């Protein structure tokens, strides 16, 4: 790649070469959130630059490419070529944060799997809405596991490979335990009485729920 180390100093005396002006316009148009006016470009580029010519050259350079340089009134912008709009359909995906209820439910399944709905409710201390489970199933982050060999043979939930992939985990066992969360500073370090019991139970999860 070519370097233009002296460009700012040069500008005191003369404008940079046209090729340089062109790539400056290119960078500004690319990075701007809104179309850029010629006056704005003039203010940003070194004194004496010929913005109109640089833009014309730039527009020509992008002819037939996947990206175009277009004029919008007296402002300029870069846009993807209209014929390639079909490629951009995925850009319109809207990302939303998972609700707190869903995150907590997901965390319980991840840490305690296989977990029944009753167990999730027991740990969260509130009932789990149908929608929350459905959402997690829909995301393919949890799926049905084996039924518990307890009265009523309730269904259980386990996390999926999609979940592991999303969270960058090799296995659910890689999730840090309470002790480690605390060590990593993710928990308030206020050891409550009888906490030791809690933390041990943390590693031997299946047994935690065997009460009847």
């Amino acid at each position, binding site marked *: 790649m070519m370097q233009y180390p002296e460009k700012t100093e040069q500008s005191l005396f003369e404008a940079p070469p046209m090729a340089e002006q062109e790539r400056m316009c290119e960078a500004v148009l690319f*990075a701007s959130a*809104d179309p850029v006016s010629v006056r704005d470009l003039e203010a940003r580029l070194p004194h004496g630059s010929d913005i109109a010519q640089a833009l014309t050259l730039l527009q020509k350079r992008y002819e037939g490419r996947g990206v175009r340089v277009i004029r919008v009134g007296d402002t300029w912008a870069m846009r993807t070529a209209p014929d390639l*709009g079909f490629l951009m359909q995925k850009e319109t995906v809207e990302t939303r944060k998972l609700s707190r209820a869903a995150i907590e439910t997901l965390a*319980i399944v991840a840490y305690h799997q296989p977990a029944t709905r009753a167990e999730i409710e027991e740990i969260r201390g509130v009932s789990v809405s149908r929608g929350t489970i459905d959402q997690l199933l829909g*995301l393919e982050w949890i799926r049905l596991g084996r039924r518990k060999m307890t009265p009523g043979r309730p269904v259980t939930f386990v996390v999926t490979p999609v979940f592991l992939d999303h969270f960058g985990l090799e296995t659910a066992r890689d999730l840090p335990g309470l002790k480690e*969360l605390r060590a990593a500073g*993710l928990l308030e370090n206020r050891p409550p009485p009888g906490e030791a019991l809690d933390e041990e139970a943390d590693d031997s999860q299946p047994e935690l729920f065997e009460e009847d």
Partner: protein
Amino acid sequence: MSNNLFQEDTVSVTDRLAAEALIVDVDGYEGPLDVLLTLSRRQKVDLRKISVLDLARQYLVFVEKAKELRLELAADYLVMAAWLAFLKSRLLLPPDPTEEGPSGEELAAHLAFQLERLQAMRDVAARLMACDRLGRDFFARGQGEDVARIKTVRYTATLLDLMQGYARIRTRDDFRPYTMDRKSVFTMEQALERMRGLIGYGASWTNMAAYLPEGWDNDPVRRRSATASTFAASLELVKEGRLEMRQSEIFAPIELRKVDGTR
């Protein structure tokens, strides 16, 4: 050999001022290793060639001065001081062949390695922060494409959300106000109600233990609660004149009998 004398004699005024600045600034240091690194820089040599002995002496002087100024030093500074005092003695005394463990030179070499490594990490950290950075030196596309045709909602959560969510649930109990475990408590009201129903059949002296409700005599916690409330309920019934209690000697079983004629 006297440390203090040695220091007074050889340390120049500027060095002494620097040492004092070091002490006044003790809050600005990130632990003992950081202080050592700062001290070692004053030797103005390659970190691989520093005199660990001098460094140990300077650090001990540093800790002494902090004490004189009554500055509170965190425990790890003192632990380091103790370790350096030990290292100093190892370096000064001829090696004792009967002694186990690493030699003074090995320990000194490791300390030098730690300092060099910390310095190296600082250097590369500075280089890293000086890299061309997104949003400062180079920029991403500023404008999102506006070709909304398919609108699907994608839910995301980070591992941090997940862990914090879990931590939140699991520590919620830690901060819950204290409540009695109702499952193992047999209240006096319950005992009184039970005793009122049973006492009519207690014509002969009967051990109070026989009045404990079913299922409350196996678990010690539950037994204790049931015994206490049954005893209190019995006293209440005695007060009402419906029951008699007796105990032949200390720690002997308490026996109950209904008062004749109350039926």
